[in-house]
């Protein structure tokens, strides 16, 4: 797919990997709408990146997503690329010890992580792909997953959500190929972002990095470059590409 002149939605594009994806897409001449729950973040983004189109949206709520997608389509008239990047990182073991004894994983947080990381992907994709199909647009859906999809101790909800995202990538690639729509996953390893540092202690990060062949955190730019590759390559569908400094080798 040639990027120049295309139209894209990036979810969770206000910070981190999402923001860099927005920036690189726009550098390649793509018109970008950003869907995010953070209204202040969207305002800042508009000030930083000229031409980005912000849509405030709680991606964990289906009716919000339908409304925002409809508004975006009214404006853009067509859509070629969807990047499902929005998500929250949360780390907690299934059971942890506290002074009061065993403490189970917070059920509310389980639901929130699943809703933000998995439900949102479903809600966005079904809403956007419906528009692509009706216009017979040969589009591409990029699902930002994680190497945690393979199971990461201390990340029940996050790992489960990302494993679900990988399954959706494979399922939709098979279902949508006839419509000319590709579906690809990108699974970052540990990256230099606010959310990584918020979710993991320095000690835990240090331990992880000693295992990684490249022994460093990835940059958001390196992940966004993977997204650009996946969008461009018309023979790439159904798979999730791990960009992790060799950690999972």
């Amino acid at each position, binding site marked *: 797919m040639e990027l120049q002149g295309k139209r894209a939605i990036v979810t969770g594009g206000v910070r981190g990997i999402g923001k860099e994806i927005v920036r690189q897409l726009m550098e390649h001449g793509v018109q970008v709408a950003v869907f995010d729950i953070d209204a202040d973040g969207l305002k800042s983004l508009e000030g930083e990146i000229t031409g980005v189109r912000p849509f405030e949206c709680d991606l964990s709520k289906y009716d919000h997503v339908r409304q925002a997608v409809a508004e975006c389509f009214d404006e853009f008239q067509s859509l070629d690329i969807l990047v499902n990047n929005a998500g929250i990182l949360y780390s907690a073991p299934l059971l942890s010890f506290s002074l009061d004894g065993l403490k189970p994983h917070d059920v509310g947080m389980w639901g929130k992580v699943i809703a933000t990381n998995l439900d949102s992907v479903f809600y966005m994709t079904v809403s956007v792909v419906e528009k692509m*199909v*009706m*216009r*017979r647009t040969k589009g591409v859906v990029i699902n930002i997953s994680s190497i945690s999809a393979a199971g990461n101790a201390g990340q029940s909800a996050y790992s489960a959500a990302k494993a679900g995202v990988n399954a959706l990538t494979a399922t939709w690639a098979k*279902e949508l190929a*006839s*419509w000319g729509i590709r579906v690809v996953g990108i699974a970052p390893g540990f990256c230099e972002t606010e959310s990584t540092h918020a979710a993991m202690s320095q000690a835990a990060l240090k331990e992880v990095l000693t295992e990684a062949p490249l022994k460093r955190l990835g940059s958001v730019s390196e992940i966004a470059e993977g997204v650009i590759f996946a969008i461009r390559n018309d023979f790439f569908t159904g798979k999730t590409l791990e960009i992790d400094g060799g950690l999972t080798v």
Partner: protein
Amino acid sequence: MQEKLYKLIGDILNIRSEDISDDLTMREIETWDSLKHMELIVSIEREYDVQLTFEEIVQMQSVQAIKNILSIKA
């Protein structure tokens, strides 16, 4: 056109050409589901060198409907 179309439909839906008629509809054939319908559409587009609109794809739920649309487009 009929023989070629019947063969194409038969190959995709795994039914014999002799069992295909213009009256055949998607509802009557178990194998003719949404996924198979798209396979059929892609084959028709390739074989007859046409680009179908979404509305035409939705209409093509019987052999007769397919023939009607192809007679205009192909």
